[in-house]
């Protein structure tokens, strides 16, 4: 469970990034955050694992404040939160397996990880994670030999190897073509259903949000302006979130099948 309690973010130059946000995300939910660029989607998502700091309020993960956590405690909490990035953020020259195994470093001592001495079970776990996203056979390829969609699946596998209870995905499909977009979103959805991992995704494609989410949160100028199930997220609601009519490029437009 993720609880946002009166979250605000004010940048040093006075710009308000987030404005008194109160939310509770329950275990197993598939939440999609929508909004214009600059609305604070990324800031909100990244405040959950504190890649971005907030200036007010606090965030509780399963009842424990990550906002106040420090050092080893903070790292321990981050270990349980997987993250998927728009630009994949893999080490391109390392093998796929090593990239996935890097998700395990939080479980072992510094010395052990320095020498890359992961136990057999970890390697098994990493390979299983790759199997779940259908790229088991790429385990010993270099990451830069893979296509964009495959690379994003490696980063999903990294989050799985972390044995994360929550997965955060910040515009996971923004650098992918429509077809691979669906494959990656399908992977995320399947993992959410099969393993019950709470998933929070930032998207700017409205139709994708409707198709995959169980709950949609709309942000506008740092404030929550919509929060509800997909059935309530009508075109009119989206126009409200965006403050204008929906543009064509906010629809992915390719249907399944």
């Amino acid at each position, binding site marked *: 469970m993720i609880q946002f309690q009166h979250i605000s973010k004010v940048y040093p130059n006075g710009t308000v990034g987030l404005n008194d946000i109160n939310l509770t995300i329950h275990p197993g939910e598939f939440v999609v955050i929508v909004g214009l660029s600059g609305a604070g989607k990324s800031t909100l998502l990244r405040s959950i694992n504190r890649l971005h700091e907030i200036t007010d309020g606090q965030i509780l993960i399963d009842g424990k404040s990550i906002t106040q956590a420090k050092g080893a405690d903070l790292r321990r909490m981050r*270990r349980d939160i997987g993250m998927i990035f728009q630009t994949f953020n893999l080490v391109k020259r390392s093998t796929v397996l090593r990239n996935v195994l*890097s998700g395990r*470093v939080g479980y072992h001592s510094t010395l052990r990880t320095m020498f890359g001495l992961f136990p057999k079970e970890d390697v098994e776990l990493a390979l299983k994670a790759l199997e779940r996203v259908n790229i088991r056979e790429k385990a010993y390829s270099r990451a830069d030999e893979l296509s964009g969609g495959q690379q994003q699946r490696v980063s999903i596998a990294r989050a799985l190897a972390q044995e994360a209870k929550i997965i955060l995905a910040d515009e996971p499909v923004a650098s992918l073509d429509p077809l691979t977009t669906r494959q990656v979103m399908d992977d995320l959805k399947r993992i959410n259903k099969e393993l019950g991992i709470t998933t929070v995704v930032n998207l700017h494609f409205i139709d994708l949000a409707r198709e995959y989410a169980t709950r949609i949160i709309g942000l506008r100028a740092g404030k929550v302006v919509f929060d509800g199930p997909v059935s309530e997220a009508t075109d009119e609601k989206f126009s409200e979130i965006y403050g204008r009519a929906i543009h064509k490029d906010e629809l992915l437009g390719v249907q399944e099948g």
Partner: protein
Amino acid sequence: MSSATFKRPPRTKLYVSLIVLVLFLIGSIYQTEATLTKLVSGTPEIVKFIGEMFPPDWAFFADIWKPMAETLQMSILGTIIGALFAYPMALLAARNVTTTPWLFYPARLIMNLIRTIPDLLYAALFAVLVGFGPTAGTLALIFFTFGILSKLAFESTEAIDPGPLEAMTAVGANKLKLIRFGVIPQVAPTYLAHLLYTFEVSIRASSILGLVGAGGIGLLLKNTLDLFRYDQACAIVIYTLLVVVIIDLVSTRFRNYLLKGSAKPLSASRSRMYTLLGWLVVLALLVWSLTGLELTGIQPTTWVLMKSMMKGLSHPDWAYVYIPEGEDLLRSLLETLSISYLGNFVSAIVCIPFAFWAASNMSRSRYVSGSGKIFLSIVRTIPEVIMALIFIKAVGPGAFAGVMALGLHSVGMLGKLYAEAIENMDMGPTEAMTAVGANIWQKMAYAVVPQVIPDFISYTLYRFEINVRSATLLGIIGAGGIGTPLVFAINARQWPRVGIIIIGIVITVSIIDYISGTLRKRIV
């Protein structure tokens, strides 16, 4: 899909490379007799030496300015004359301008040969031929700048747009007209930028030529060191560095302007005025150098010496290659390689923390990385030959002083290159590792190191090529390696031996360049 299908690929190559690296390391430690005890026992000497350098004798400036001016005059004259030969040679060597292979291949060969011979060696040879003094230095710098400039100009000439050349051929221009209207307009700014760069390099070279008696500030430095006036030596080093840094700054600004152009285009009359001004400055510098230098010209003995030198050089002393009792060419070359390998190895490791200090993306404050950058640039501005002189005073002559000098100088050079590699790194993986819950060491091992390692290795290899060249010279001032027998042979005028040693150096440098170049291409 059974798990056996995707077996982990073997890592034999990595292990073999590591073993070879370590074997070379052990070998070069054995060769140079470099030990930690030597370093530890030498440390008080180094500290004492540095202590005696401070405070520098500022009043010594009265004696410094004249040889300093001579240093500048030598490099001005050397660069200009070198350039007069270098540009035509570059055009002759460029495949797209000189289309006949039997012309451009020999031109390239001459260019490369002249470039392989280091500056100090030219100086030592000319000092014998025309006598001690600035004449020898100027001649050495002519060859030295020719080597650098012809290579740079050649490369930029081959990279020009072929369109205008085709057009000039189509209008029926002959070779000279084609060069005047098709090539020169395209390469002029780059040629000029290269000229300035070569001038910067030649000042650095010019400041050490005096060590072998070829004029300039180097001679004064050697004298003060021999008289144990380290405070005066320190003043010389500081003044020289100041001059070098100021000229570098001015020249770098000009070069950036030439290569990138100014923000607003100049009017035609303004541009003509600047060109005229530029020519006047060059002319003034030339007059100043020609009147200031006491050029002795050709000695009566020069021709005789030249004849015996040429005869000796063309009849190398093959017997010197291997002498069972020792002190032969092969062993001296091996010592040279050991000095460069060990110096390189040490600096490749020592410079890592400095590189992280200087990299702007590794610290929040600009002051942290800025101070690191300044520190590294101070270290690399001091030429390795000067460092070797200092270490010889501290730990005694021999290979160990050479290792220390090369190692320290390379820290400045490699540290800068490593820092750039770190700055060019993709920060995404580091962010991902933060999200995973990694601590700082784990981020280093999983996000930073794998990204920067190929660049680090490539730069280290490149540095090794340069260090081998430098190491051949260190012996001239007594810091071990092939330079020692070379300078003995030159002073004793044993030209056949000088010949075989030069052949040995050229072959060694070429082989190392080839191996290192091949390895660097494979690391991407």
